[in-house]
């Protein structure tokens, strides 16, 4: 995979293979896990934020598993049954003994669905898995967005700034998001022993 420009990295949060490239935006929040907080509440908070930012670009994304997409999960965001974003979490104790939760999302802003599906399927094949991702169940903001998206040339950084503004995050946007500026493009996986 690395030789093809898609090195594989293992992530701590859950889920399957998730392709990451210059046209995707990754966002992660990290918070103390206060008593009574649930996995669902954390997913819903980030989901709501992403939905608001997508809505700015003319997209109404619905929550639900897109079974034939990469890394399917109950908090996938889809437009007409085509996945545009997905989320995962990791709960752990930090060095100070405080339980924390990281909630992450990967949003496809302008990667071609066929390219992403091909990368994931090559990984599946190489790993001996029968799982397959179908490009017909993927989309991007560039493909599905309204006039505002179409009129924005650098859509990924613009989307990051919009997301940050909705979240009330200040300062250097890049400090809140991972910025993919070109190859190599990692294929993010979750470790399973």
């Amino acid at each position, binding site marked *: 995979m690395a030789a093809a420009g898609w090195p594989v990295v293992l992530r701590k*949060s*859950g889920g399957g293979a998730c392709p990451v490239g210059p046209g995707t935006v990754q966002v992660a929040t990290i918070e103390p896990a206060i008593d009574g907080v649930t996995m669902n509440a954390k997913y819903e908070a980030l989901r709501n934020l992403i939905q608001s930012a997508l809505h700015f670009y003319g997209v109404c994304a619905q929550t639900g598993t897109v079974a034939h997409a990469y890394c399917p*999960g109950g908090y996938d965001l889809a437009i007409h049954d085509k996945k545009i974003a997905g989320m*995962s*979490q990791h709960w752990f104790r930090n060095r100070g003994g405080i339980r924390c939760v990281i909630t992450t999302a990967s949003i496809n802003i302008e990667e071609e669905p066929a390219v992403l599906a091909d990368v994931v399927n090559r990984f599946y094949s190489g790993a001996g898995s029968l799982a397959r991702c179908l490009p017909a169940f993927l989309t991007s903001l560039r493909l599905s967005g309204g006039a505002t998206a179409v009129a924005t040339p650098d859509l990924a950084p613009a989307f990051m700034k919009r997301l940050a503004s909705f979240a009330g995050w200040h300062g250097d946007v890049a400090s809140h998001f991972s910025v993919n500026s070109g190859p190599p493009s990692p294929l993010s996986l979750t470790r399973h022993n």
Partner: protein
Amino acid sequence: MADVVVPEGLWDTEKTPEGIVANWFARDGNAVDAGATIAELMVEKTTYEITAPVAGRLRILTAKDGVVRPGSVIARIEES
């Protein structure tokens, strides 16, 4: 003897009825320290690290890939 418990109410079981023990990081019978990460759950694309509530000898009740729900007792620790 202390129970190693999946926290009550950790997830909405109406949406996701159950999870699994994805990994054990200590073997049955091993001595574990209080606060050590001894297992990992997987629920709805969430990895959840389970830590030992006390020090002692681990007795695993739910094997790797076994099903868990909020409140499940997945192991006990014989306090030393």
